[in-house]
Each structure stands twice: as structure tokens, then as C-alpha cells.
């Protein structure tokens, strides 16, 4: 492999962005920020980007952003969770088998639980693919993957992306299913490191590796753009510089 994990994830996320749509990520989202900018530079020149806490954000507060999402204008949102489960729920609140006695608490918040219903597609990503991050059931549901049919919902999860694999969300079943595996990982690796049933119903393809064009643009153009615009500049300097 001649790319690091951050670069791989940024490339994989960038491929989810569609031209002409509004795509966004929240606070503390270095990798999605890079992915959004990469997509705009490569295949989505007319994508509108909203990167919170950066110059790539037309809004000063979260209110107009939430209202935009509620109007159904947000095409894609990148979310992350400390845990993700097979039902597409993610947890940004707390870790503990006993809900009243959390062993760790996280920022949580309402935003994710709202945006998950509003963005037409949400891609949940996680920088760790282990049995403690991909679990059968999250300790706390911050955002719900599925909802009853009579509940107002504008959009759904579309994928979960980790450094080892892509999962697609099957809306009808309300389940994540293994979609593709990033080389050089194997099905055994995925099975050993995933805490839920992979929902296999046939052979699983390999994820197309980052192309030299994607990596070149990420390292030369996007890294520079992030540094110059003060968008996670330190992170970009360190992480988008190859192996």
C-alpha cells in the first residue's frame, strides 16, 4: 500500500459525493472535509460543500444549516460514531453496558439524530474497524438507522465506511451488509474484526484502490488548499503526505 489510512478514507468518502448536490460534514471532521474537497476537485465540480468550522461554510450558526437539512436540501452528510451497529444506529454519547453508569462520555448532541433523518444520504464512517467499534447493538442510540414507515423521514443511511471495508445499508431490511473489502484485507480479517453478522449473500468484491489521480490530487491540491484555508491545516500537513 502506498497510501495511509487517512488518505484511503478520504478517497473512499469522496466517491460518495455527487455532482450538483449539497454535501456536508460536522465539527471535528478532518477526513470528510478532505473527502468533500477532493470530490469537488475531481468528479463533482458543481457540488456545494458545507464544512463546519471552516471557510467552506456559508452559515454562522447551526440554525440555518439545520433548517436547510429539514427542507430536504442536503444531499449527503458524513457522520461518525464511537460505535456503529448492524442496524445502522450510531452512538456518539456514552460507553457502558449499564446506561446509568457510563465509563466514558462523548459530546453526543442532537444534531446527528436530526440530520440522520434529513440528509437524503448519510455515510457513517469510523477510523477503527474492530469488534468494539462495530457492534451488534450500540450502548446508546444517538441516531437511529431505521424508523417506522409512518414517521416523517426525508433520508436514510447509505453506507458505513471503515479502514477495512464498505458496508451498504439495506433500507428495506434496516441492516448493514458487507459491500466491498479494501485490499489487502480479506473476508477473514473482516469477520474477525466485526462484532455483527456481515449479512453475506454471495461473494464480496474488493474495493477499487485509490487511483494515482485521486492520491495525487489529495496530496498536491487538497493538502495545499486545507493548509492555505486553515481547514484542519495541521492535520492535512501531517496526514495527507503519503506513507
Amino acid at each position: 500500500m502506498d497510501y495511509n489510512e487517512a488518505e484511503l478514507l478520504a478517497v473512499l468518502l469522496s466517491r460518495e459525493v455527487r455532482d450538483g448536490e449539497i454535501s456536508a460534514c460536522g465539527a471535528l471532521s478532518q477526513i470528510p472535509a478532505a473527502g468533500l474537497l477532493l470530490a469537488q476537485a475531481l468528479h463533482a465540480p458543481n457540488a456545494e460543500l458545507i464544512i463546519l468550522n471552516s471557510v467552506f461554510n456559508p452559515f454562522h450558526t447551526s440554525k440555518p444549516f439545520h433548517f436547510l437539512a429539514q427542507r430536504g436540501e442536503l444531499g449527503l452528510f458524513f457522520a461518525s460514531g464511537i460505535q456503529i451497529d448492524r442496524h445502522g444506529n450510531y452512538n456518539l454519547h456514552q460507553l457502558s453496558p449499564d446506561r446509568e453508569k457510563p465509563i466514558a462520555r462523548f459530546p453526543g448532541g442532537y444534531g446527528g439524530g436530526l440530520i440522520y433523518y434529513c440528509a437524503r444520504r448519510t455515510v457513517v464512517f469510523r477510523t477503527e474497524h474492530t469488534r468494539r467499534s462495530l457492534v451488534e447493538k450500540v450502548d446508546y442510540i444517538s441516531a437511529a438507522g431505521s424508523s417506522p414507515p409512518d414517521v416523517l423521514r426525508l433520508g436514510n443511511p447509505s453506507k458505513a465506511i471503515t479502514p477495512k471495508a464498505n458496508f451498504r445499508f439495506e433500507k428495506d431490511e434496516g441492516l448493514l451488509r458487507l459491500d466491498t473489502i479494501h485490499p489487502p484485507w480479506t473476508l477473514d480479517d473482516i469477520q474477525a474484526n466485526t462484532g455483527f453478522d456481515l449479512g453475506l449473500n454471495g461473494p464480496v468484491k474488493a474495493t477499487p484502490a485509490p487511483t494515482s489521480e485521486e492520491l495525487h490530487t489529495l496530496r498536491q491540491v487538497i493538502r495545499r488548499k486545507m493548509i492555505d484555508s486553515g481547514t484542519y491545516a495541521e492535520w492535512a500537513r501531517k496526514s495527507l503526505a503519503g506513507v
Partner: protein
Amino acid sequence: MGVPYVPIIGLVGTDILKRRDDMVIAVDPFDGKTKSVVAKALRPDVAVFHAQMADRQGNVSCGYHAEVVMLAEASRHVIVTAERIVDRLTEKEATGAFIPSIHVDSVAHAPFGAHPAGCQGVYSPDKIHMRQYVIASQDDTSFSEYLRTYVHDVRDHDDYVERFVPLDWRQPAQAVVG
């Protein structure tokens, strides 16, 4: 907004809803079938927040487009502490959000009133203090100790600033008396 409740999209199926009795799932009164969450309006008795600038009439400049404007509108009483007090502040001079005095009951001059958090455009968060706070909040004993040191045993705001705001920060904040 002044309305008793608002519908919101999302949250159904989360554990957040289980802990809130001010949010319920309700049926759309127009189509009679679609469900969504309805949140009861917040109507705080008192709101207290810190601003960059305020004047003697109670006009406030928050220095950024802050959600505190909504907070001020929603609350029955509003108390504002400010880095600077000026003689007269108009909406034009406000940098960012402006809260007209009609919403504000009291203003107090409190330089470094946001410490250890930051005050945008004036000072950044005190990272060293924040780290202490995070460590202290991991158990009840150390948090009580934190409260004793930084809250209960502090005589007043001046005493707090004198003892806990880094010395090299204290240059810019001064009341402009007109």
C-alpha cells in the same frame, strides 16, 4: 418564537427521546397520519451569558452570530456580563449578533467573564485550565476540590481574575467609560 411547541424531524428511535419528557411523538394534524417529534418550547426564567460588548442601556453585541439571541428572546429575565461597557451601542456598531436592550434586564462589567472558556475575538480558551477541569471532572472528589478552589473559595470576580486568569492575558480588557 413564542409558540408552545415545534415539530422537528428526527430523533424517533434514539435513546435521547427516552430521557426527555418535553419531547413526544405526535401525529401531523393536517394529514392525520405522519408522525414526528414535537418539542415543548423552552421558556427559561433567567438567562445569563457573556458578551463582548454592552452599553448602559442594555444593548448587547455578542461579537458573532450567536444562538444567544434566541436565548435572550425566550427568557423572562436576561443578565449579561460583558468584556467592555460602552456608552452607546447601536446595531451598526455591533460585530455579529446584536441584542436590543428590550430583551435585557441587567448588564455587568466582567472582563474575562468567559474564562476558562474563550470569548471570540478577545481571547481563546485557557487550554491549561480546561485540561485541569477535564481531569477534575472525572470523579466527585476531585470535582468538589475543583469547585472549592475556583468557585466557593473565590471572593468575587476580581479575585478570580487576579488569581486564575493568566497574567499576560490581562492587557486588552478595560472598560471604556464615556
